[in-house]
Every structure is written in C-alpha cells, then in structure tokens.
C-alpha cells in the first residue's frame, strides 16, 4: 500500500497538469511582470532598465492612490451595505417557507448569472441623466429627475450600487445557506425562553453565522480589490480618475499610454497587495477564533 502510494512517477503524472497550468498561466506571467516592471518598455521597440523608477513614480501617482481608495470604499460598501442587507433578507426568507421561499431565492439570484457586459451597459442606460430609468422613477414620484449620477464626487457610489445590486443574490444565498445550517434546537430553546424574533436574530443567528461572515468578508475585500470589468465598461475610471481601480489603471497605462513597463510595475504591486490583504485577513480571523475558543474554555 505504502509503496503504491509513494510511487514518484504516479505522483508526478497526477500533479503535472496542475503544476503546468500554475507555472504557465500564473507564475510565468508574474515573473515577466516583475522583469518588465524594472524597464521603461513602451510596448514596442527597445527599452532600458530603469531600476526602481517605476515603483518610485507609482508611489507618487495620485491615480493609483485613488484606485486603492476606491477599492477600500468598495470593500466597505460590500461589508456594511450589501452584507447586512443580504443577511437580513436571508433571515426573512428563511422564515417564509414553502414555494414562495424558492421563488424569491431564484429571483434574487438572477442578476448574478447575467454577464457583466450586459449589466454594465444596462446600468449605463439606467443612470443616463436624460432618459435613464432612475431619473424617470424620480420624475414619476414628482421630483425633478435631473441628477447626474456620474458626477465627479459621486460616481464611485453609482458604481458601488451596480456592484451591490449585481452581487446581492450571491451574498444572500451564502447567508441563507448558513442560516439553514444552524441547529433548529437552538431556536426552539430560545423560543421557550420567550425571545422575540429580533432577539433571536442577534443572539443566535448572528453568532452562529460567524464563520460564514468571515468567509464572506474575506471574499468581499478580495473582490473589491480585483474589481475591473464593471468599471471598465461603466465609466472606464472616469470622470477624471474618480472611479479608477488598480486593474483598470494598469490596463490603461500599458495599452493606452504606451507605458507597458509601468503597467507591469502596477501589476506587481497589485499582486503583492492582494496577497498581503488575504494573509492579514486570515491572521485576524484565526486569532479571533483562537481567542473565542479560549474564552469558551475559560
């Protein structure tokens, strides 16, 4: 048995395809990015090595700062707007039961299966100040309905709303599953104690969902960092750079401003930030869990 399970050739044959994909599609491009990040390569012709020049510039690049700030805003928006809403709706849905429950769950998830390309274009129309749906709704309620949703200062919120709307079903579904997994005995006990629905939600549902929330928060932060496609189509970072995101910015720099080297430097920093954030989040949650366990034991 042992011999069979430690046959090197068998192991190699099993992990080779996975490793090949990792090396070819992830590791090699990262190495290439690191290489070009040290050059002033425009994308065409010859280039020189410029040392840390690109990274120094990046440090002073206001647009890159805006990108990171926007990612942070987006993560906050996800965590403090989308997730509480999703959790409440999931809790409400859980109470419903029957065919209605399935119906609503299905409806909420539908935007999620639609392509970002469609969603972004659709919302471009919805936001249009002159004939868009949103202003028409305001008009229908007697308002003036001439809001410019992509105003320089508020455009990022307009983007946020689209992302929250698009991802709502996903978040809801995960919380919904989390709630369904809670042991019903706990609820029964609480009911015997005469707890109200709201008390039950805060005393039982919420604490029981901790692991699910942690996973969701991590995912929210990462997807806020990785955001590109919706922004690319909806605003392409504008007006000005007010809705810029790192991925979109590096794409623009490399393929629009002929700064392929600089674009790659952004890519490298971007990857490092993503790795760091994931590791930090995991650490925070691990420590917390450990502390909670200690408390429980105590």
């Amino acid at each position: 048995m042992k011999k069979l399970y430690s046959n090197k050739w068998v192991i190699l044959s099993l992990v080779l395809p996975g490793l090949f994909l990792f090396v070819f599609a992830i590791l090699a491009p990262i190495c290439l990015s690191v290489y070009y990040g040290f050059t002033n390569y425009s994308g065409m012709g010859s280039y020189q090595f410029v040392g840390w020049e690109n990274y120094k510039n990046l440090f002073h690049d206001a647009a890159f700062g805006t990108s990171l700030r926007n990612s942070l805003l987006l993560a906050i928006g996800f965590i403090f707007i989308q997730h509480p809403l999703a959790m409440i709706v999931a809790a409400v849905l859980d109470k419903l039961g029957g065919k209605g429950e399935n119906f609503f769950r299905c409806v909420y998830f539908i935007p999620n299966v639609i392509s970002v390309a469609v969603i972004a274009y659709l919302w471009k129309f919805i936001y249009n100040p002159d004939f868009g749906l949103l202003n028409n709704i305001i008009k229908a309620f007697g308002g003036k309905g001439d809001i410019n949703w992509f105003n320089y200062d508020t455009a990022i919120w307009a983007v946020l709303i689209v992302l929250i709307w698009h991802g709502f079903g996903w978040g809801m579904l995960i919380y919904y599953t989390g709630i369904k997994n809670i042991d019903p005995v706990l609820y029964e006990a609480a009911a015997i104690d005469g707890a109200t629905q709201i008390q039950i939600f805060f005393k039982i549902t919420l604490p029981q969902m901790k692991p699910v929330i942690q996973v969701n928060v991590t995912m929210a932060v990462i997807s806020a960092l990785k955001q590109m496609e919706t922004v690319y189509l909806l605003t392409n970072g504008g007006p000005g750079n007010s809705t810029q995101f790192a991925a979109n910015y590096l794409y623009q720099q490399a393929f629009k401003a002929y700064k392929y080297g600089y674009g790659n430097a952004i890519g490298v920093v971007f990857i490092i930030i993503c790795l760091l954030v994931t590791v930090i989040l995991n650490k925070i949650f691990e420590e917390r869990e450990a502390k909670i366990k200690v408390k429980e034991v105590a």
Partner: protein
Amino acid sequence: MRKKIVSVLLTTAMVTAMLAGCGGKDTTASSDGSEKSPSAEAGSSSGDEITLKVFSNLPDRKNGQGLVEQKIIDEYMEENPNVKIEVEALDEEAYKTKFKAYSMEGLPDVVSIWGQPAFLDEVLDAGVLAELNESDYDDYGFVSGSLEGFKKDGKLYGLPRNTDVAGFYYNQKMFEDNGWEVPKTYDELLELAGTIKDAGYIPLAMDGGDGWPMAVYLSDLLYKVAGSDYSSIVSNAVATGDFTDSSIVKATELLKETADAGLFQNGYDSQDYATAQNLFINGQAAMYYMGSWDASMALNEDIDEDIRTNIRVFTMPVVDGGKGTATDIAAWNGGGYGVSASSEHKDEAIKFLNYMYQPDKLSKYGWENGVGMSAQDQSAYMTGDETELQMQFVDAVNNATSVSGTPINDCGPSAFKTGIESEIQSVSNGSMSVDDFLSSIGKACQ
C-alpha cells in the same frame, strides 16, 4: 437527484467534447473547400490563397464610413478571388487600445491610423508600419499637405482618409419652430444655451466621456482665441511643458464657462459617443458637436426622416477679443490607413491600400454616402444630389481663410494625450482648477 445532475453534466461535457471535434473538422473542411475554389483565373499578382487582416476603427458597417470601407473590401474580394479579407472593427477608444497591444507583437496587415504625433510618433519610432512609395500617389489627387502628418524623415507611412472639420450640428426644424438663430458670436451661443434649456431641450449633446471631442472643442476655441498663432502656441507648449500662455488659459476658462452655462447635457462628462449622438438624432438635443465624418447622419435610415433631413451645421462662432475670424476653421487631416511592416503579404496589402485610394473608391463612395470630405480631390464626383449638410461642409472648407491643423490633444506624446483627455473632464466640470489642469498636462509632456 444528484445522479441526474452528474449525468446531465457528463453528457454536456461529452457533447461539448464532440462539438469540439466537429468544430475542428468543420473549419478544416471549409478551409479545404476554399482552397479548392477556382483562383487560377483570378489574374492577380499571385494565384496563392491570401488572407488579409484589416483592423478598422469603423464598427458600424452599415452606415457612413464603415459602409464605404466594407463596400470597397467586398469589391476587392470579388475582383481578386484568391484574396480573403477579414475585418476586425472596434470603436475608436477600444481600437486605439487594442492597436497598441497589437503593435507589441505585430499588427494586422492593413490598419486604421491617425496622422498625428500623439498617435503616430511612437508607432513610427518602433517601425511597425511599412514604408510607402510617395511617388506612387502622384495621380491620386491628395489635397496638398494632407500627407505630411503621415511622414517621418521624409518617408511616407500612411495615407489620409478624410479632411475633418469640427462643427456644431443643429436641428434646423427645432431652431425654426422655436425661433432660435444660429449664433454669430460665442456669447450668443452661451445665451442660446439658456434659451434652449428653458424650452425644455438639451442645448448641445457632447461626447464628454471620451475626452477627445472635448479636447477638439478646446482646440476649436483656442483657434478662435489665438488665430494664426494657434500652432506655434501649441507646439511651444508641448515642447516646453509650459501651458500658461494667455490664449490657452483663456480658451480653457471659456470651456469651463461653457460647461457652467449649461451648454452641454447633464452628465456630459461621463457619456460616450453613441449617447451624445443619440440625444441629438432622437430630438432631445438641439445641437451636437462632432467632426464632419458624422455628416452621414443625413443619410442614415435608422434616424427619423423628420430629423435626418433637417440636420445642418455651423462652425465655432467667433470669440470676443479673439484673433480668429469666422472663416478660420478647425480642420485637419486625421484618420487614414497604413500597412503593417511585419505583414506576411505586404505587397498584397499595399495593393489593397492603393485600390482603396483609387480616386473612384474611398473618395467617390464616401461622397455618395455623405461621409464628409476625403483628403483627395472630390470635385469630379459632385452629382448635385449631395445633402445640404454636405454642401455646408464643402462651403465651410472652400470659404475658409485658414485651417487649424491637428487638435491640441494629438500634438504631444501619447502620455500627454491620455492626460489631457482624462483631465479635461475634471477642468470643465470644476473638480480641478484651470491652473492645476494646465500644469498637470504640462507635466505629461515631459
């Protein structure tokens, strides 16, 4: 139940795998087929099968310039059965982005290019475009000076397609019904903006999301402010990175005043080309600022006849205290075509390029389809059936005392272009001061 999903998935997987097989066979079959197709009697330079890739910035193949381009391609393929031309078309912004990606590793055979420093300088430095023989084009009737933008060190690398004129398209019927007059001065224009707004329409639809039409507008203003000094002021500023010349400051301030006066539609700074155009052709906006290539609107069947036949145009009105007169107009030779230096079928590609520029092709068809003016002598194709809109542009050019040349955003390196096109929104909507704007675009020049 689970078993069912799995079996569904497995069957899907199998079907797709089979489809993959079929797909493969299909394509080989079809290419086999075309290889067998008669090509011997084609009578072209070579009997071999050739596929030319054309990369174009004209995605609308059923109207205007795109239609003209496609028509010529179809004719060429008919006359040369051994040549197959594949077109990839993207709209301007996406086109320019992908062009740069392509230029890293080899361009398609024939490409749309712009004879302007911001676009062409780096491209020519990298040597990705094939050199053309200028003397070949002696009889092609190119307007004098129109080839200059496509040259480097005296060598020619591309050919211009149009003579572009910037203009204010307006809805004549709407103007008449409301008793509005075409403005003679810039102040009148701003005043008119208020009047139109009060009547419940958008004064002018502006493609502010893309940046370049705003930059053209700024150039147009600057030309009216600085007059014949325009090009020296601009080239000076780009060379030194110092944009504090009083004319540039004044033009930029005027642009901001214009936005403040509400000439542009609400949210102009985030709306794209199509949105701006649609506002105009659907009767929401009274005016629309764009280049002469959009004169084909007058023949576009998708637009209501009532509006289509009533589109007219005027050029930038004079600015109080400015040096430019009403007949000094913003016009330039911009878009055109070039051939890839790394093309495997360079000769065929150049042959096709020359075919397009035969005077009775691009120029004639363009004229017939109301696309505005080509960069070649078109007088032979005047039929008397031109739309009034076309004639207005022709008159504007014929009566012009001088033309501006390249718009400001296209005069510097591409980092400058990217900078000015994204910051111009900020300066017009007031989120950035004029001084900051000018120093920021100055920095991008270095």
